[in-house]
């Protein structure tokens, strides 16, 4: 499920300047495909401004998301891997961003469940951190689903 959604939405970058840029870059495949509107990107950034960097779900990995206020067209996910980590507020270093765009509050739960399976196993998480191509990541996700 997760792998299916991620196909074509994975990007690798050397580095970005700010965490705001990181979120923009990470979400760009979704914007390009029309799954979200530009407002959703602003909403994700504002979410961090208002509520703090709680979207950094485990050290090194962030899951930018926001409430759907008519700016998510279709439930979708994308992933950005940075060679050099970027700093989120409160000095949180992040090198993997997993953008979540959920149409309603239920439809995306199996995506989240898959993500949880990836992160819960240290071994799988490590592989994710060391992966260098989209195919590698997709194959890895398929093993846990």
């Amino acid at each position, binding site marked *: 499920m997760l792998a299916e959604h991620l196909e074509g939405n994975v990007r690798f970058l050397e580095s970005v300047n700010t965490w705001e840029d990181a979120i923009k870059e990470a979400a760009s495949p979704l914007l390009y495909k029309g799954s979200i509107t530009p407002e959703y990107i602003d909403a994700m950034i504002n979410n961090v401004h208002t509520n703090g*960097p709680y979207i950094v779900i485990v050290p090194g990995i962030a899951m930018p998301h926001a409430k759907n206020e008519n700016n998510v067209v279709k439930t979708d996910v994308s992933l950005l891997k940075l060679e050099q980590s970027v700093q989120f507020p409160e000095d949180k270093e992040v090198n993997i961003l997993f953008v979540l765009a959920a149409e309603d509050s239920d439809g995306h739960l199996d995506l989240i*469940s898959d993500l*949880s399976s990836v992160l819960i196993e240290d071994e799988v998480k490590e592989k994710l951190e060391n992966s260098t191509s989209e195919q590698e990541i997709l194959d890895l996700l398929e093993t846990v689903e």
Partner: protein
Amino acid sequence: MENSARETNVVEMNQNTPSTRAKVQAFGGFLTNMVLPNIGAFIAWGLLTALFIPTGWIPNEELAQIVEPAIVYLLPLLLAITGGRMVAGQRGAVMGAIGAIGLIVGSDIPMFLGAMVIGPLGGWVIKKFDNAMENRIPAGFEMIVNNFSLGILGFLLMILSFYFIGPVIESANNFVTASIEALVATGLLPLLSLINEPAKVLFLNNVIDQGIYYPLGMQAAAETGKSIYFTVASNPGPGLGLLMAFTFFGGKTARRTAPGASIIHFFGGIHELYFPYVLMKPLTILGMIAGGMSGIAVFSLFDAGLVAGPSPGSIFAYLGLTPKGSFVGILAGVLVSAVVTFFVTALILKMGKNSEEDEELSESIEKSKSMKQEGKQIYTSSKKDKSIDKISFACDAGAGSSALGATTFRKKLKKKGIEGIEVKHYRIEDAPQDSDVIVVHKDLLERAKIAHNDKEIITIENYINDPNLEPLMERLESSRS
């Protein structure tokens, strides 16, 4: 594992709270939480009524049209929505409102108490249903099942409450009428307060005033020019005493709203303004009864009475309808009843408050302790003595990170073979009131505390493997094995 040792200490500290007391307090807190957020609506309605009804300050026929719908629909629905939300979040709120509309249309008096029962009941029904269906809905069908289950159950609740409430009101009316007639026959008029005061708060005041006391009063007034019956249920003194007691000895929020309510009540004559305070702390009805009794006793002592039924029951209407020679008696009766109610209510509030203060104190001690523990923010509060079977992960939208946290925690429980614990995700404000533990990100603690101050809140920074969740897992393991 220094972490878990500390946690056990806190648990033991809290275990010496007797659970019945805790339960009574929890219930009292529940009533307060259901009423207090809506006081503003009561005040808005009170101002509108005091100003614009035909006997108000600046009568306005057009604006007065709002009075009736607001008290019949708006206020009870607000109570039912708040009550439902406290039990089962937004779905509970919807269910509570659906149930309440059945009650409202099925009866011809404002359904405050009814709404305070049906709201939480509706929430409970949908919660039970959701629990039973959890994990059984095929993926992709959640929306349709959720909407239709709420729709169908609400439809049934609406009809049930509609047919149920009519007979209940009728028998309550009959009971009140029969009791009052029996009491009048004994000649011991102060005893009337025993029926009057509870009946007023339940909105049977029109039944008793216009149905019984005014006819009795008009008979007497036709003969002697005045009657005490006009005063027995309309005396604004006890309500004033009650609101003053809340002003000085009530909880934080009640203390701030009571002065305004007392002005609308005493000068505007809108007695409904004090009803929510009684509903919030039902024991204070004793203060109302004591005040009402002493008021009637003083009125009869001075042989005082009014020339007609005061409506609304404001101090100005009282003075305007007092015949010559009754002024001293009427003023003394109002004053005495206010003073008596003030002292009795103050005593009741103080008794209740001591234990609350104890708790607040112990809470703040625990809080400062946990704050000292560098970097670990375990915010603990009173509700620890009970076994844990409902854990709510909460975040801003209730869809992303909280869902990740809850899913992961469920997986871990499953791995350890721990069953029967409900782990779900919510928007912070929608996390159900009966959650045993609330888990939030540390950046959202302040918001979680506002919504769930009486609960155990665990803060995390890592949704997958946070050290603060380990003691919780250990507690679950030891209590289930």
